[in-house]
């Protein structure tokens, strides 16, 4: 029987994977993916907990997260494209003119 | 005249703001007239001052931030009265001494000076800790500008150092003030920064100790006490004459005044407890800086270090805990203001003529500029505390008063009359005596009318208050006695009660 803890563990693992992705990836696109993974990990947790409590608000949160993630992707990709045009690269080591 | 204190504070501010409009070439005349009016106002204040009243007079009270207990609260007593008058006087004379041909951007200078005057007068008149702090901090700004804009080669370093050092110390002081307010709040249930209310506050000895230290940080740097004095030589070394004059004459007094106004009455026990500490620092200040002064090559630095040395004597007087020493130290604040101000003016005079302040460049000035040498000599004698000059009265009283607290300390501090004369006479000998060594100096002009106008009043005061200090000492004495009575009443520990000699006890003994 798959219980809440399994879901939560899955969520935790996914979150960690996303987190590691954020930390390790140097490509901006991959970075965006990693954040999406993190958000989705949380979604699983919300859905599971909502189900556990029999409460709708968890799932509501999950829906909103999905919506926000979608708009994030929209904005993010937009920025990414402009950036690519300017720099010709998506490597984070290149996009580092401001420092100090 | 109900609002004379507010007028005294804000008239220079208003005049300063309006001064932006005044034409460049008339700026000096404008400055003189404003400063003269301010000086006359301060004299009027003296005239209408009730010399028999020891408490605060001409008080004004307007709540500003009532929820936090901050109010515009000013008043004057015998302790602050004369410092205010001196501030106004030194500003006036300083402006008179300004050389229009040498000072670029005279208008900015005048405006800054007028702002500075506001802050100086404000510091000495405020009775609300936050308003005091406000003026205290604000005074840094015009001074920063004056040093930084018209100073010597490393003026920016000196100006910034002056600002930051003082600023850092006063922020610690601010924490102390906030703590006192909080303690008062605990005790009385209301927030107030009113100093007169604070005087009622009864603090434990431990608290007094820490609060004393917090305030000490602010005041000691301003005084400046050893080892926090190093900003001063830089500031003086770089500042233009007017800047040094005001700095030495008035700004330094803010520190000692702070001790008198805050530390003593608020923390009588801690003050008594701290006497050895203060004494140690002061004695080092007196001897060490006097010796450093002796080593200087630059005339102005000698005067700068001598300032520190003399401030040490003032500090000792503040902690003498008897009317003689405390009154003497307040008088010494005035006399130090007049004398060191005048000495800086004099150095400025020769610097304007020759473009140098290095003593070895001079020699034999006495034969070229006899009047200059005479005025310098008089100020020098006042500086070394010759009787019948203004310098003696304060120094004598301070040492006399402090003898009761610590004979050994007094002897050590009293060496000031020896080493003080060593560096001063050496300075005078190197610059004024001997043959004329530098041919360039042979055609120097003696003091001109402008310089004499600025200096002769000071000479007159030096002699007048040296011979007849009573009109000034009287009100000071009255207020100081009240302060001591309050302190003794407030003191908790028997040692403090023992040390503080208020008049009451002296009478009882008799």
């Amino acid at each position: 029987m798959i219980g809440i803890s399994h879901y939560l563990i899955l969520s935790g693992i996914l979150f960690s994977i996303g987190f590691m992705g954020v930390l390790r990836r140097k490509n901006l696109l991959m970075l965006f993916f990693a954040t999406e993974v993190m958000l989705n990990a949380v979604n699983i947790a919300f859905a599971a907990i909502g189900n556990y409590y029999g409460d709708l608000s968890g799932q509501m949160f999950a829906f909103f997260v999905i919506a926000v993630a979608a708009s994030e992707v929209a904005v993010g990709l937009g920025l990414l494209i402009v950036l690519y045009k300017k720099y010709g690269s998506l490597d984070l080591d290149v996009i580092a003119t401001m420092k100090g | 005249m109900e609002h004379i204190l507010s007028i005294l504070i804000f008239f220079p501010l208003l005049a300063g703001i309006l001064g932006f409009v005044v034409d460049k070439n008339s700026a000096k005349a404008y400055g003189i007239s404003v400063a003269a009016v301010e000086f006359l106002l301060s004299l009027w204040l003296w005239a209408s001052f009730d010399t028999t009243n020891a408490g605060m007079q001409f008080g004004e009270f307007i709540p500003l931030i009532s929820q936090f207990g901050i109010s515009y609260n000013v008043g004057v007593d015998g302790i602050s009265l004369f410092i205010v008058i001196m501030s106004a006087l030194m500003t006036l004379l300083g402006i008179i001494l300004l050389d229009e041909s040498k000072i670029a951007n005279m208008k900015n200078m005048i405006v800054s000076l007028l702002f500075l005057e506001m802050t100086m007068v404000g510091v000495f008149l405020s009775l609300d800790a936050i308003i005091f702090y406000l003026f205290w901090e604000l005074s840094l700004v015009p001074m920063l500008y004056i040093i930084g804009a018209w100073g010597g080669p490393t003026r920016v370093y000196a100006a910034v150092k002056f600002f930051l050092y003082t600023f850092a110390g006063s922020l610690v002081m601010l924490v102390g003030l906030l703590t006192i307010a909080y303690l008062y709040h605990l005790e009385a249930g209301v927030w107030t920064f009113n100093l007169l209310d604070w005087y009622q506050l009864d603090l434990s000895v431990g608290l007094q100790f820490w609060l004393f230290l917090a305030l000490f940080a602010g005041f000691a740097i301003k005084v400046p006490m050893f080892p926090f004095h190093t900003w001063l030589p830089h500031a003086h070394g770089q500042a233009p004459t007017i800047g040094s004059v005001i700095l030495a004459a008035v700004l330094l007094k803010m520190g000692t005044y702070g001790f008198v106004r805050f530390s003593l009455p608020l923390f009588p026990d801690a003050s008594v407890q701290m006497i050895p500490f203060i004494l140690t620092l002061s004695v080092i200040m007196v001897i060490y800086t006097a010796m450093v002064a002796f080593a200087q090559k630059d005339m102005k630095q000698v005067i700068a270090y001598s300032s520190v040395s003399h401030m040490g004597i003032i500090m000792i007087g503040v902690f003498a805990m008897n009317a003689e020493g405390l009154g003497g130290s307040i008088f010494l604040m005035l006399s130090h203001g007049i004398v060191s101000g005048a000495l800086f003016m004099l150095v400025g005079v020769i610097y304007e003529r020759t473009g140098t302040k290095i003593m070895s460049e001079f020699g034999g000035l006495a034969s070229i500029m006899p009047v200059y040498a005479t005025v310098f000599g008089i100020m020098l004698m006042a500086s070394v505390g010759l009787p019948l000059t203004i310098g003696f009265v304060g120094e004598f009283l301070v040492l006399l008063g402090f003898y009761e607290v610590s004979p050994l300390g007094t002897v050590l501090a009293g060496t000031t009359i020896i080493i003080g004369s060593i560096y001063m006479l050496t300075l005078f000998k190197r610059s004024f005596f001997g043959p004329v060594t530098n041919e360039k100096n042979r055609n120097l002009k003696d003091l001109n009318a402008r310089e004499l106008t600025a200096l002769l009043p000071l000479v007159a005061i030096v002699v007048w208050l040296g011979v007849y200090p009573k009109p000034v000492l009287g009100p000071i004495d009255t207020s100081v006695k009240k302060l001591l009575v309050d302190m003794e009443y407030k003191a908790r520990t028997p040692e403090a009660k023992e040390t503080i000699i208020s008049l009451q006890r002296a009478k009882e003994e008799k």
Partner: protein
Amino acid sequence: METLVYIALFAPFVGSLFAGLFFARSPKNIIVGIVNPALIFISFLASVALAFHVAEYGEVHIKMMDWISVGNLNIPFGFLVDEVSVTMMVVVTLVSTVVHIYSNGYMDHDKSFNRFFSYLSAFVFSMMILVMSDNFAGLFIGWEGVGVCSWLLIGFWYHKKDVTPDINPAISPSYAANEAFIMNRIADLGMLVGLFLIYWNVGSLQYDVVFEKLPHLADGLLVSIAIALFIGAMGKSAQFPLHTWLTDAMEGPTPVSALIHAATMVTAGVFLVIRANPLYSLDAVAGVSYFIAALGTFVAFYAASMALVNRDLKRIIAYSTLSQLGYMFAAAGLGAYWIALFHLAAHAFFKALLFLGAGNVMHAMDDELDLFKMGGLKKVMRGTYIYMGVASLALAGIPPLAGYFSKDAIIETAFNEGTYILWFSLVFTAGLTAFYSFRQVFLTFEGEERYKKYGFHPHEMYKYVLVAMSPLAILAVVAGWFQETFHEFIIAVLPDYEMSHHTHHNAWWLGLLVLAFAVSGIVIAYKKYAQKGENAFKQDAEVENGFLYKLLMNQYYVPYFYVEFIVKPYTVISEKFWAIDKAVVDGTVDMIAKVLYRTGDKTRTMQNGNLSSYLNWMGAGALLLILAAAVSAVMG
């Protein structure tokens, strides 16, 4: 009487202002030369009138106004004219008058003629305050005032440049002036401490109050007060070890030396001890008093010994002054205050005369001071020779001149007290005194005319100057005759001092002994220095290379010691302190700033612009938070 007091006091002040304010910038003005002596003379007349008044009606005590009044301290400008102060007043104004007139001639060609008179009159004013004040603070005003005037006058020729000590031991007038001022300040600190002690234990600085309460104070306290005040006196009166300034002070114009450094100011210390006689005659401070006497005796001998070999006309007289001050202190220390005062007065007359005579010689010799370059001057300067001879006789204590009476009394006192070592030292010193005085006189006026070799063209002083000096000469002769009158006059305020029967019995041979010493001193001097021709005086290289000669010539190496062990270390330490101030005290402050700044520079590397590392920072932060959370949860 008040008016007279004020006239006596303020006439010199008016003179000083008159010369100082109106003529400061003008060249020599004869009006100054007339008005100033006249004003001093008026002061003298007033003093004399007061003296008669005091003799008749007792002391005059007036209060002019309040000076300082703070707390319980109340110092008025009050003046007390009693027998002691009026004696001083008369002496001071008398000598001053003569010196003022004399200066007209001496400073004839000086471009700062007016300034000189201004200073000189200011000095008289200060001296009057010193002696007339009715309290210690007022005395201190005068005390410092004369110090400043002395500074101004020693350094009067400030334009002279510094030279090495082997050319001129005083280096330069301005140097000597500073030295004098600073040394006096050292003593002044002691004096101040004395005042503080008095104030805190008596509650007043008024003489009458203080002296009334003194006997009730603790012994230790009294001793402290006595020591402190005497330290003050040691400075002004140039007692060992604060004596070196006095010889260097000879850099000042000779009238100054006569007035300030012989007749008046240097006796202020003696005056103080006499003034404070109620203190010093207390049993509790007998030790201090004895020390004063001993020190005085020592200085009398010590100074005289240095005078034996010196070649400098003025320095010899300066040493002799020192020596005579020692005599005065000896008397005062032994309790013979009135004798001390008497010697003070007599000494003032003949020593001033001696100095003024020396001034004449200098004037004639173009300011040359080396005795070995003089000789045989009696031909051209007969008047001066007589004056200096009389003064020297008085100094040597040859009857019936003034010095005989006063000095003899002191020596007798020492005998009377049973302090035979002091007594013998004083007797012996009297012999030395006679020797060096006449060594000087003979080297100057008798013997070969060595000056010709050096191309000098000496000439006698103006007539009127010589006439002006005559009062001093007369007094140097006759002053001693009034010993008894003075005695009666003065014991109204000073404790009487009577010799015991034993001393009375021995008085005749005591006197003869002293006289014998003195006469033999003169005779030796004559033999050695006054001959002409073959026996004429020649410098003896063997003697001059001897240890003793060198020791004396170098003033026992005391100035050398001061330079090496005080002046130089002080300078070095000052420089060190300055270096420390810059490097350590200021350096710490700058260091704090620098450390902050460098930390900023280091820290900004974390801001490397790379998003990936930013994210890592964030991640690290989050992990750290969570880690801390875990730790704190486990701990908690």
